[in-house]
């Protein structure tokens, strides 16, 4: 337990180290999720359009 606290305390530099790492994590995750969401949205949009076209026929 003590070593774990020591690890997160980072010799007093915890604020610097963990803020840098968490900001990086947020950026990297957003970078992965945004294109995935965009593709899904586009596909759904196209699907709606195609279905509409079929109904008209």
């Amino acid at each position, binding site marked *: 337990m003590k070593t774990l606290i020591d690890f997160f305390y980072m010799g007093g530099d915890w604020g610097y180290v963990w*803020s840098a790492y968490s900001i*990086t994590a947020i950026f990297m995750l957003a*970078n992965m999720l945004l*294109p*995935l969401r965009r593709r899904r949205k586009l596909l759904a949009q196209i699907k709606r359009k*195609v279905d509409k076209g079929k109904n008209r026929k």
Partner: protein
Amino acid sequence: MKIRINFNYFLLSLGCLLLLSLLLAPHTQPLQGAIPPETNAKAIGYQTEFGPIGTGITVFKRRVLNSRFSSDTTLLNKEKVEQMIQPKGTRRFDRNFWLAELLFIVLIAYGFGRYDSITGFIKKTGSLKYTYHLSARFIPWLTAIAVLLLLIGLVDGLVFAPIDAKQKDAYRIIFIHVPASSISLQLYVFMALMAAIGLIWHIKIAEILAAAAAPLGAALTAISLITGSIWGGGTWNTFWEWGDPRMMSVLILLFIYLSIMGLNSAIEDRRTAASATAILTLSALVIIPFVILSVNYFNTLHQAQTQIFNKNSMDPRMARPLVIMIFAFMFYTAATLLMRVRAEIIHSERNTQWVSEEAAGS
């Protein structure tokens, strides 16, 4: 569009450049007197940061600048120079690093090509549908490797790497700062290459790759800038220093990435946008090395580039996680780039038959 280059004009410009290089030759130490002499040593130092381009710069420096500087070594702090020029044994490691990066590129190309002969591969990647399906098979692998390397690198860097003598634990930011900065620069070169290919041969996939690389590069540059500033807050006692050329050059790189994204989104027609963006990318490419190289000539707070494979400069136990993290970021970048490319392909092919089928199946 066809770009006509008048060859007389081209020769004239080459002549001007030649004349200029002759003019500049005796003045490679521009701020002589204005900076402390030991800063000059940095110009001879090893660079391992900028990818393949960096190797070129390093070779140029060793061949050209070294011979020029050797005439006035009295100006330089000799100990520092000896520290910065690598011992002979470490060159092998340095070369191995580049071989490893080359291997990375070859592996990916081989993976793509495994499905087909090389010529068929080149023809087929021209087809967006083929690229779309092929990249779907690649993304899980690339992501898995990236996550694995990230985990190994993080544990190795945060737990097992020793504490730095001067900067204590704050130095551990290096394991994300250096990979992000290095890859943000390499990605720009990649983007410029793709932009040139798209501009000259009108290959659609190159245009899409260039468009997809810009936001990713901007994000990596932002990461590099933010982590760098936090690190600076820990060690230089200042989060932001307007006078620091290194920070400013990265900031300009971020602005350039953002302006490229801005131009790309301002133009309605995708093909026109791709060509216009390509011209901007290539124009800014001329500026970027100028900005980066100017760092060596000015006095900066930023520490000299770490020589990963020089034991005098960096403990191997610190170097190992750093190298792992650089590769992790590379795989991550490749994976996210392909994800963006897939979204872009759907957008640009939205009126075709296969995309409608794809949408119906999803």
